[in-house]
């Protein structure tokens, strides 16, 4: 509990300190950590609790980001998104654009989940990876929206009276979303639904034998996870004012998995720690050498081989399954 309070204090006060020191760079870092943490938490829901090793999570984040950016692009250009059979204009109004982006990510998760959840194990990993790659190539092919170069956003979404262009305001919005996501997921994994989900990870055959049509529950979790990832994508696009195929790259999916495992699977708080550790490590190693991945790769291997419990486990003492 004390640990949680400390962490929260850092998250709340850190950017304020950075602001007063005139170091906006660190506000951006905090923002990026919080955004990545939302994506990682959503992955933890299916990976840590549901036992589904999805290697395509970046796709859902990317869809959320691209939908936001494309809608904003059309709003800025004054060009309707769709002219026929009915005119649909673009929008940079968060109240419209964000739910649309989340819904698009959820829809993608539904379709991908319907096919890939028919398999398990290695095949599931490979199929989610392949579908994510499909979407990656799809956005590259969108020449109108920048293709390989990505798409610059004219500005952040408008959200009521909030000034999202203010760095701190935007950060606190992201933080609020992150906390809300963690709290909701915490309730979720302890609910009846969550018990089924956790049961699926431990012994799916048993759950089927006692009468759960497990595929429905797994699919529902997959879609929820995709939707939350889409929300992370919305914030990602707004945070960097830019979307690019790199946001959907398969290596990014790998990074999300790393964050979850690094921080502690099936803990929800762990992925936040993992995201922070990953991005800080990237920053430190990256400033020491351009070839930081040559160091990070072996570090990752050593962690996997010898320290599976993750940061959260190391801090709290034991993994808590909620």
């Amino acid at each position, binding site marked *: 509990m004390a640990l949680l309070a400390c962490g929260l204090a850092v998250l709340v006060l850190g950017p304020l300190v950075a602001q007063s020191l005139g170091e906006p760079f660190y506000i951006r870092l905090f923002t990026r950590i919080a955004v990545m943490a939302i994506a990682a938490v959503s992955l933890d829901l299916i990976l840590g609790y549901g036992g589904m090793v999805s290697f395509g999570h970046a796709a859902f984040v990317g869809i959320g980001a691209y939908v936001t950016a494309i809608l904003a692009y059309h709003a800025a250009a004054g060009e309707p998104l769709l002219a026929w059979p009915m005119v649909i204009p673009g929008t940079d109004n968060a109240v419209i654009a964000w739910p649309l982006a989340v819904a698009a990510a959820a829809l993608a998760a539904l379709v991908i989940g319907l096919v890939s959840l028919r398999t398990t194990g290695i*095949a599931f990993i490979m*199929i989610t990876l392949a579908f994510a790659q499909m979407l990656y190539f799809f956005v590259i092919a*969108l020449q109108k929206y920048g293709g390989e170069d990505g798409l610059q956003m004219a500005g952040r979404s408008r959200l009521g009276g909030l000034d999202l262009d203010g760095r701190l305001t935007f950060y606190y919005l992201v933080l609020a979303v992150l906390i809300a996501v963690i709290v909701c997921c915490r309730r979720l994994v302890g609910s009846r639904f969550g018990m089924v989900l956790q049961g699926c990870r431990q012994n799916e055959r048993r759950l089927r034998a006692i009468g759960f049509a497990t595929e429905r529950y797994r699919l529902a979790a997959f879609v929820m996870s995709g939707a939350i990832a889409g929300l992370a994508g919305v914030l990602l696009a707004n945070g960097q004012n830019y979307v690019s195929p790199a946001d959907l790259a398969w290596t990014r999916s790998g990074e999300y998995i790393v964050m979850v495992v690094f921080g502690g699977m099936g803990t929800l708080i762990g992925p936040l720690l993992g995201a922070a550790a990953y991005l800080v490590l990237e920053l430190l190693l990256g400033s020491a050498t351009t070839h930081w991945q040559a160091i990070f790769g072996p570090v990752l291997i050593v962690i996997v081989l010898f320290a599976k419990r993750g940061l959260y486990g190391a801090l709290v003492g034991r993994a808590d399954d909620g």
Partner: protein
Amino acid sequence: MLVEQGLNGLQLGIMLFLMAAGLTLVLGIMNVVNLAHGSLYMLGAYFAASLQQWTGSFVLAVAIAVPATAAIGIVIEMATLRTLYGRDHLDQVLCTFGLILFLNEMTRILWGAVPLRMTLPATLAGTVALWPGIAYPAFRLAIIATGILVALLLYLIIARTRLGMLIHAGASDRMMVGALGIDIKSLFTLVFGLGAALAGLAGTMAGPLLAVQVGMGDGILILTLVVIVIGGIGSVRGAFVAALLVGLIDTFGRILLPPALADMGIYVLMAVVLFWRPQGLFAAHG
């Protein structure tokens, strides 16, 4: 035109088969996810490109690059993957993901960021007239021929030899192989080395067609995974059929479909196959 594209598709399919055959065996027999398979392909290409620059001989470059890649593969197997058998797939994914980051970056350190080029020897650089009016690059034909040769060889190994029998038995019943008193560790290392050699071969052949650069293995890795999933994990025959299917559909998709959809063709194929048969076209039993 149609023939030419058909051959292009065939050639892509053959490349994919070389990649998939090794990986599907590794997956099927050892039940290990090895994402670093694409890195072996990349290393094969780099070895070949460098060796060609040193020796000036294409044939010599290929002849050395393939066993060199196999050797690297065996070292990787013994150093990391060996500890991962029997652990869950997530560990394997993460560990081999770390390997990719490492190998990509080491390649960048050793060879630099500028792509290398490979040149073809005169005998393979030209075109061959298939019949009057239709000329086709000789090198691509050579790739197709090599691939078919390898497929035949693999078929003979699996169907006719003791090693093949063990591979077959290993895929369906690992306990039995252990019970036969076979050193399963050596078997795994051998199969992994074989897979690495095939990936290296594919890499050396891709060298003259594509730019040899860091990350070239990532794209083909994912295509390879698609092939394996469609073919059925562990099935070399499935890999062959699926590789050709994917090669042809990808090639023709690019001609017939608008660009946004062309890249998605094979994934749609994968989705359709999986919806119909979740275990793939040729599921290895057991």
